[in-house]
């Protein structure tokens, strides 16, 4: 069976899986960004209780493996009477896990804004909200976007794990086709190529564009 007839027969199935993968990617990315901001801000709080809660959360999710968390959400939570759909538990596990890494990036970004900027805004009698909105946050973006972009590419790769909790994504479809046809090179090879194309030609250029945009906004041209 040539590769083209393989694609003709199973290409549509793989594409359907790809769409699910993209859905997981988008939902999990939104969730992880929200969590990163919340816990990143909590981490730099002056209140030691709030800071402690954030630290425990971050250490917990960074210290245990994503796959363990995923299985825990899918197989153990039902014991406590909370049954999540496979898709939901996949998105929640990935979002919580990557949120912990993202929170550290956000914290680093906030701390990296020079102190003089805070003092300057204070001296000019800016309200705390205006100070954050007009002075601090625009300067945070160019700092945190490069590491956040790396993390997002990692997240795309991590979405493959949701196949293990029966979400019918690209990896799951590739496994299914492999089980039916035993054309392993073709089906896993195609899956690898699709992930590569998504990341190299769509996700990464998009994130680079965001970085350039953020750098331009604060007057730093980026090459």
């Amino acid at each position, binding site marked *: 069976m040539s590769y083209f007839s393989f694609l003709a027969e199973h290409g549509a199935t793989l594409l359907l899986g790809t769409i699910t993968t993209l859905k997981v990617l988008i939902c999990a990315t939104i969730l992880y960004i929200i969590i990163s901001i919340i816990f990143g801000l909590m981490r730099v709080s002056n209140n030691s209780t709030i800071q402690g809660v954030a630290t425990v959360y971050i250490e917990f999710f960074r210290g*245990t493996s994503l796959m*363990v968390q995923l299985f825990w959400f899918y*197989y153990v939570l039902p014991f*406590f009477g909370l049954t999540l759909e496979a898709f939901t538990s996949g998105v929640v596990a990935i979002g919580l896990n990557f949120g912990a890494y993202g929170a550290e990036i956000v914290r680093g970004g906030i701390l990296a804004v020079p102190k003089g900027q805070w003092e300057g805004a204070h001296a000019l009698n800016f309200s705390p909200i205006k100070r954050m909105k007009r002075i601090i946050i625009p300067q945070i973006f160019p700092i945190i976007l490069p590491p956040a972009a790396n993390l997002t590419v990692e997240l795309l790769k991590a979405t493959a794990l949701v196949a293990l909790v029966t979400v019918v994504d690209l990896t799951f479809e590739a496994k299914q086709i492999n089980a039916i046809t035993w054309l*392993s090179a073709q089906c896993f*090879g195609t899956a690898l190529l699709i992930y*590569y194309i998504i990341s190299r030609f769509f996700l990464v250029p998009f994130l680079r564009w965001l970085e350039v945009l953020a750098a331009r906004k604060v007057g730093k041209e980026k090459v």
Partner: protein
Amino acid sequence: MNAEWRWDFAYQILPKMLWATLNTIMAAGIGYAIAVVVGLIFLVGQRTPFKVVNIIVREIIEFIRSTPLLIQLFFLYFVGPQFGIILSAWVTAMITIGLHFGTYLSEVYRGALEGVPKTQWEACRALNFTTLYTYRRIVLPQAFPIAIPGMGNYLVGIFKDTPLLSTIGVAELFHAATSVGGENYRYLEPYTMVGVIFLALSIPAAIGIRKLERSVNKAQGKVKN
């Protein structure tokens, strides 16, 4: 189903889980050792005098870095037999982890080499040192402390990715938890214990790496923080 945590069950499966933990640590250790060497190969591959080779190696690294470890595992495990190469699950797992994390480590090495100021090279040139001597006595000792945090992070990273190996049947901690859970139809204790064991190992490892980083910096005469 009841949500009660059963200590007797937890005690009963504890020895099995701890044995499997040894397998996990072994897998992470061997995989890391391979990745450290593969990383060096990738590093050299990017810095050859032949531009075509550099570009090809660079693109291979990009490919491995942007595709999921899980499918790479499946690929190597299932495709080999199609061409008559039958590798055991352990061997496949170690090769895959070595290749996957080798690409990350080569980036760490590259960053560390570039982190050594250019003036160091120029000074060595002025002192008429050979390239080998420059690397051995001047550049590598300075690049090493820069590489330590990254190298340490990936050791912990490999450790946290070892549960993936259970998908192709490597008998590590997560595999043990799944099989124990399946036998007794109780997943609460095994999976929770896996999480606790992971925490108990990865947090001290992270602290140890931070300490090592500090002591290497101190030995180099650079005191950080």
